[in-house]
């Protein structure tokens, strides 16, 4: 058995982005529905993943195996490639996502997201006979666009793409203390470096991760 059932059936907890932009608010919550309808991605046989059978997977990352991390890196690089301005890899978006999914509150999202990486890789194999990390940028864009971005709204593929974009934005535009937005590359691109100054900058020794770790939402029942 692979480490995770890597079909998007594994999106048992439908992940979606929920916007709470009323009243001058600026919130997109990371949401997930626990029992909503789910769409299996395909009945195709699952190709064995290296390292996923027999020996435990090797990894030098927090959340992902080396193979998963390679797929993730290739995917975020397509969402925000480097051009005249820095891209996702320059800002360490992949490192951010690897670390962010360690948070206790996001444990379910971690399963969903990792399942989606496997589905992406498999889909690329079916469409272009090559793993996602090894595919050309054109092939990668094709898979992301056709099979995920433009999949039906109720499908697991659509929701996973949504989550990929949202996590990429967090890693590109979030507080640098979480490991992403390196050199404030994202803020500079969006002009938030200007706003941020006036907003009263966060103190240099601030570490958002520690605050997140301390979040408990009431009654000692965990989050």
């Amino acid at each position, binding site marked *: 058995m692979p480490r995770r059932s890597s079909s998007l059936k594994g999106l048992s*907890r*439908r992940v979606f982005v929920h916007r709470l932009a*009323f*009243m*001058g*608010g*600026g*919130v*997109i*919550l*990371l*949401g*997930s*529905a*626990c*029992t*909503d*309808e789910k769409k299996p991605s395909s009945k195709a046989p699952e190709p064995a993943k290296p390292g996923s059978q027999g020996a435990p997977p090797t990894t030098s990352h927090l959340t992902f195996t080396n193979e998963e991390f390679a797929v993730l890196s290739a995917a975020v690089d*397509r*969402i*925000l490639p480097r*051009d005249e*301005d820095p891209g996702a890899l320059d800002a360490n978006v992949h490192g951010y996502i690897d670390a962010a999914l360690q*948070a206790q*509150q996001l444990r379910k999202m971690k399963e969903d997201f990792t399942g989606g990486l496997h589905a992406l890789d498999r889909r690329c194999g079916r469409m272009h006979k090559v793993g996602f990390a090894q595919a050309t940028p054109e092939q990668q*864009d094709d898979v992301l666009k056709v099979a995920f*971005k433009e999949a039906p*709204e109720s499908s697991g593929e*659509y929701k996973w793409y*949504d989550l990929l*974009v*949202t996590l990429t*934005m*967090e890693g*590109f*535009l*979030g507080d640098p*203390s*979480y490991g992403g937005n390196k050199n404030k590359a994202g803020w500079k*691109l*969006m*002009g938030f470096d200007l*706003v*941020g100054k*006036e*907003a*009263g900058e*966060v103190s240099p020794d*601030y570490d958002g991760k520690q*605050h*997140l770790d301390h*979040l*408990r*939402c*009431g*009654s*000692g*029942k*965990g*989050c």
Partner: protein
Amino acid sequence: MALDPVDVVIIGSGAGGGPMAFELSKAGFKVVLLEKGPHYQQQEFVHDEILNSRRNFFMPLPWDEPHLFRPGGKSKSGDEHPFKHTNDGWTANCVGGGTVHMSGYFYRLKPIDFRLRTELGAVKGANVADWPITYEDLEPFYEKAEFELGVSGNAVPHPMREPRKKNYPLPPLREHPMAQEVEKACKSLGWHAIPTARGILSQEHQGRAPCTYCTLCGSYGCEHGAKASTGAALIPRALKTGNLDLRPRCMAKEVTVDEKGRAKSVIYFDPDGKEQEQAAKYIVVSCTAIESARLLLMSKSNRFPNGLGNDSGQLGKNLLFSSFGESRAHFKVSKQKERWPWLETSREPFINRSCQDFYWMPDDKFGFRKGGTLGFMWTHPNPIFAGAGLAKRGKEGVFGKALKERMREYRDSRIMQFEIYGEFLPTDGTYVMLSDKAPTKEGKVVTDKYGLPVAAVTVTRHPTDLKMSKFLVERGEEVLANLQPDKVERIGESGETTILQGGTCRMGKDPATSFLDADCKSHVVKNLYVVDGSFMPSIGGIPVTLTIAANSFRVASRMVERLKKEGK
């Protein structure tokens, strides 16, 4: 074993619970305030979008504490629509409730809102009702709430201006030059752009520091205490009396009754997850319209098998939100700065202009009479929020180079938006029930992390509302177009703002058609009060928080009288 009885237990510490805790503890009564979320200190409010806006700092996560939402009516296949899990309908989860991270747009209702049934006559398909109180009954408490919370503004004359004895306690906040342009635009259309009052201090007030004009306000807690949250303005002062026992991270699960049918105690999970029982002479529920209905529906007994005080079956009915609509005007700075140099140079966060010319229509030529308010503001500067919005989804969605182009364009833009706060007609099809009445196809009851059934919300909009919100959006777009932006983008012309809630414990004179009396006391359970937005028979055409707070001050004054009498 129940904890020793106190005078009053209040459940929920937000716009409704805060004023109540403040007034009762000041009057010398022993008060326990139960709040399911943590008690953040001011210095914990940091400009970190991930922490504040994207995790469970302020809002519960939908897999921990879901709400179920569905549209009313039948789907094409003839079945009821399935419920979806969502965070919709939560306002907060911390001491101070939604007032901690609100934007503080503070308006008063108009006298006409209190007699909507009389003014509109019978509306087919809607349960429009007059309030059992008038604007004049609430006016002194608006004044009190504005003073105690600290509201900045300037009450200028305009056709829809509500009567008021005094101007706002604090002068208006500094504003962006765009405010003057909005005024000119409205004037040229024959309308009135009025200053929007804010629950934000423009000057020091009662020992609290004024606003520093940072740009991150709504969705953030204020690290200076300048926002009119009950957590900054009222609860610290209530704690100083020594009469308030604030218990954060305590989740109420049931209000019990004694053999005479009076409310006896509150059962709650303490911060360690242990069940506790707190007895009290009076119990005040203020958990938001949705969550108060849920708590009372969960409070079943032999005397009240359908939920506490629910002899009429009205509990959870006539849920109200605010009608939503929004459009944006994009100004390219590089192109427009010759005309308006301040587009580039000024980062003043506030525009603070509203338009209420369509609050009440003289006739129904446009398909509605009760309208609402247009509020003008900059779009929120949260960059993750903005970036995710630019990427869009589906066929409209972009990634790669195209997305980066949009991001560079965003950097060169200033974006102003308006939102509408419109009437939301109460219908039989918009209500709260418990998830145990709505099992999934597999027969499963959705529960939260405490193992309790959750609120299941059905929303059925009255067609009049949709005509109204479209009309208001079109008027707002006329104002935007008048400013000659590079682009006007419609975000929505229908839908509902679910953080603005009312109605589930409607007040009224007749116990058969309402849950609360004019004092916000249960018609049936004589020591049970509800003081969040649940009491409202109609939502008005404004954001409701100031009204919730004012009403809580009003109810508190009635309770203080009563407690003094009954205590002796």
